[in-house]
Structure formats: C-alpha cells, structure tokens
C-alpha cells in the first residue's frame, strides 16, 4: 500500500476517484502519460486494494476502495509530498510496459 501511495500520479488518481467512480479513459485524460503506463498505475492501485475495477460494457469503471485509515494516509502522503521514490516508481512502471515517461500535465 505504501508503494501505491508513494507515486504522485497514483495519488492523483485516488484523489480524482474520491469525487466519483470514473472510467479508465476519463482518468487517463487527466494525465500526460501513455495508456500502458496508466494501466500499470491502475494495476498497482488494484493490487494494493485501493481501487476496484468493474467492467461496464466495453469500458472499465474504477471505484475507490479505501478505508478511513488508508484515506488518512493518502492525505498525509499528499501533505508531506511523499514522492521520494515516485519518479523511480513511475519509471519502473513505464519500463515494464515498454513506454517512454513524459512529465505530468500541469493542471489548474
């Protein structure tokens, strides 16, 4: 779970899912990252038990599955900028999926 929360992209995914369940496409639109990289992030979050995927026709809907303690940890990680290993983690995920890592899209 700590590995899942240590990456800013994954934290942002969790924050987006706090508003409402979203499809994989909707979530990917918020990031300037390739789809395979996003899939790798989703699978890390799923393996940590923080999100759940549900097939709805041809789209996959992701839903938040965080306990109160996990959400508090997410808030803590976000506040202290817990991303020491973030670039390494994202790079490994990208390497695994065989794609180049691009910087995050600046929002707001």
């Amino acid at each position: 779970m700590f590995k899942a929360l240590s990456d800013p992209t994954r934290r942002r995914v969790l924050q987006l899912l706090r508003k409402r369940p979203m499809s994989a496409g909707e979530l990917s639109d918020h990031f300037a990252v390739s789809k395979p990289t996003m899939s790798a992030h989703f699978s890390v979050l799923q393996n940590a038990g923080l999100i759940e995927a549900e097939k709805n026709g041809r789209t996959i809907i992701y839903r938040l599955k965080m306990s109160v303690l996990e959400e508090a940890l997410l808030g803590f990680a976000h506040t202290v900028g817990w991303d020491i290993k973030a670039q390494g983690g994202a790079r490994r995920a990208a390497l695994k999926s065989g794609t180049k890592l691009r910087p995050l899209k600046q929002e707001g």
Partner: protein
Amino acid sequence: MAAKPIWNYIPPALIALNTLLVAENWYLRPQSAGSWFVVLLLLIGMTLALVLVSRQPKDEAARRAAGGSVRRGIVTAGLILVISLGAKLAVALGAVQYGDIALRATLAIGGAFLAVIGNAIPKTLTPSAALHCDPAKLQAVKRLAGWIWALAGLAVAIAWLTLPINLAEAMSFLLLPSAILVTVWQAVWLRRAKPSAL
C-alpha cells in the same frame, strides 16, 4: 480427513472460556444473577450460530463465506466478553483495586470496535448493477459514515480510557447519538436523491 485450521478452534475456545468466566463470576457475585444469566443466554446463542454454520449443507463457497463472517462475529464478541468478564472477575477476586475497570475496559473496547467497523465502511462496495442510486453519492455517503464512525469510536475509546467516568459518559452520550443521526440523515438523503448516469 484433512485437519481443520487452527482458526476453526478459536470461536469454540472463546465460548468455553467465557462460560467458565461467567460461572466463576456467578459464584462470586450471586446478587447479579440476572446479568450472568443474560450473558449465558448470549453464549448459548453464539454456540447455536456456530453449530448452524458448521452444518449448513448448501454449496461450499456460500457456506464458507457465511461461516467465516459468523466466526469473525463470534470471535469479536467473544474477545469483548472475555476482557469484560475477566476484568469483573479480577475486581471480585480483589486482584484489581479499581472497581470501574470492567466498565471502562468494556466501553473502550466497544469504542475501538466501532472505530474498526467505521474504518471498513468505505471499503464495502456493491456491484454497480445492483445499485438503485447514484454511485458517486453512495460513495460520498459511505466515506462520510466511515469517517464519522471511525472518529466517534476512537474518541469514545480514548474517553473511557482517560477521562473521569462522568465526562466519558457525557462524551459517549453526545457522540454516539450524533453519529447515528448524521448516518440516518445521510441514508435518507441518499434514498431521496435521484439516480444519475455515471
């Protein structure tokens, strides 16, 4: 025949231990016979539930799921009773000087139990196809309920461990009904809210 995992022996062991504690407490404090009798009835109910889930001849997966949840419930209730009855016995035997320790221990564990339940509320997901309301609103309600019960439970547990009894009582009477009211209000709001497409 395959050996049963050790987990299967914990619920009956807890029931047996609690029965012994009730018998000892009843012997030492016969004036509270009514209370001991109620606890004994509870233990008989737990035993019956355990026997029923062990013998249900339904399909294996459903039986295991139901059995697991009943066993977890029995273990939780059993642990609460062991600590409460153990504390009462310790006071009756004179091993502990503080007369209110049993009450404090029971209510602190009750608060901790509420906090654990609250912590898990947002993790319980219903398949979208089975939902009759907006999934986003349901998620918001579950998150709020989780936070309310986790914090209220934690506050009650800490209050019973640290504050004077009258203050802890006042805090429990303030926090728990407030948590129930907010949860019920949220559930009513969710029922009235019109479902919207995802």
